[in-house]
């Protein structure tokens, strides 16, 4: 039997969706214990309760950031199931659907895929892409696998579950000054980088938040470690990714 954890509903429509989900799960014969997160009962606390009761599969019902939270709490202890609701583009792509009914059917068939993850020490899990977007061009210092060092300027820095660092920047150069006051023209230089390693340290000045969707999950400085094949997830097709 599955243990379902629901993201706190943000609207009446979501509450109604949850009610439909209960009916759907009952019809599919996979109804289980269903609990809703709230400020008083965090997703992590609810997950620990489920694990203590012996559930081997925890189903996260919600968006990307919520699913990542649940994944962080169960990694190495249980299988993750997902019903994507709300802002759930990333997890929908991973499991193979953004449709509630189809996702519920995947739970019934229980095909497992194994995913890599990246841990932001001490305890931040990066299963879905996490992003740093500073308000203006920022500098990050990197140390990869303890020895390769360097720095980069960026407008957006993405960390993936495969310990890949995608660095994107865009800035104007050769601007012309008019009357010494205003600037115009210039060329936009765009830069994209992809670096990866098993252990990566990122330092920015000032500290910047690492976000999944709209939820901050950590802040710099970050020490990242690659964890291959560390999370089992119910998806459309079972595979090792």
């Amino acid at each position, binding site marked *: 039997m599955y243990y379902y954890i629901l993201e706190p509903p943000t609207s009446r429509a979501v509450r109604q969706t949850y009610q439909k989900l209960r009916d759907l799960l009952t019809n599919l014969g996979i109804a289980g214990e269903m609990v809703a997160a709230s400020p008083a009962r965090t997703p992590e606390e609810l997950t620990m309760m489920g694990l203590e009761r012996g559930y081997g599969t925890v189903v996260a019902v919600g968006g990307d950031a919520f699913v990542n939270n649940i994944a962080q709490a169960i990694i190495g202890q249980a299988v993750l199931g997902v019903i994507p609701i709300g802002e759930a583009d990333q997890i929908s792509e991973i499991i193979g659907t953004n449709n509630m009914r189809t996702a519920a059917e995947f739970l019934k068939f229980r095909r497992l895929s194994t995913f890599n993850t990246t841990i932001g020490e001490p305890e931040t899990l990066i299963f879905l892409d996490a992003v740093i977007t500073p308000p203006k061009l920022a500098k990050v210092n990197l140390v*990869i696998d303890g*020895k390769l060092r360097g720095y*980069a300027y960026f407008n957006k820095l993405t960390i993936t579950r495969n310990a890949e660092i995608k660095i994107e920047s865009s800035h104007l150069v050769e601007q012309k000054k008019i009357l010494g006051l205003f600037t115009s023209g210039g060329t936009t230089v765009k*830069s*994209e*980088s992809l670096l990866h390693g098993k252990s990566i340290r990122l330092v920015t000045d000032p500290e910047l938040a690492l976000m999944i969707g709209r939820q901050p999950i950590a802040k710099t400085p970050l020490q990242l470690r690659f964890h291959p094949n560390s999370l089992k997830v119910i998806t459309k097709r079972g595979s090792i990714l």
Partner: protein
Amino acid sequence: MKGVMETNGPGTTVGVNVSLSGTLKDQNDISVFGMVEGEVISEKSVTIGQTAQVKGPVKGELVTIAGVVRGSITAGEKLELLETGKVFGSINTKNLVIHSGAILVGKTEMPTGEDSEVEPEVDGEGEPTEDASEPADETLTPDEE
């Protein structure tokens, strides 16, 4: 400080706004558009873009240079030096393409695989013959720096 980065990921790209120091090693393709001080090693292709500056040896199967490399280059299969490319160092490859406008300052070694098979002819009675298998040392353009 020299270091090693070795992964099985989708390849490495060093963008314009990135500067690295150490050994950049990847089993897949490497593209450099920024600055790297140290070795650049791939088991597949290495592309040094027009905006790139590499100070250190470059090694790959297919190597394409459009930027500046100060160090030796070893290309197992093919080395292409594009018109904006500048190389200050030795080259070792079986297949070399140099476009008009490129700068190469250093030794070029092109192993043919015949060196070990062909023995120089020795005529005991006449003058020794010229050894044609000797690798060519050439400087194609003067060092402008």
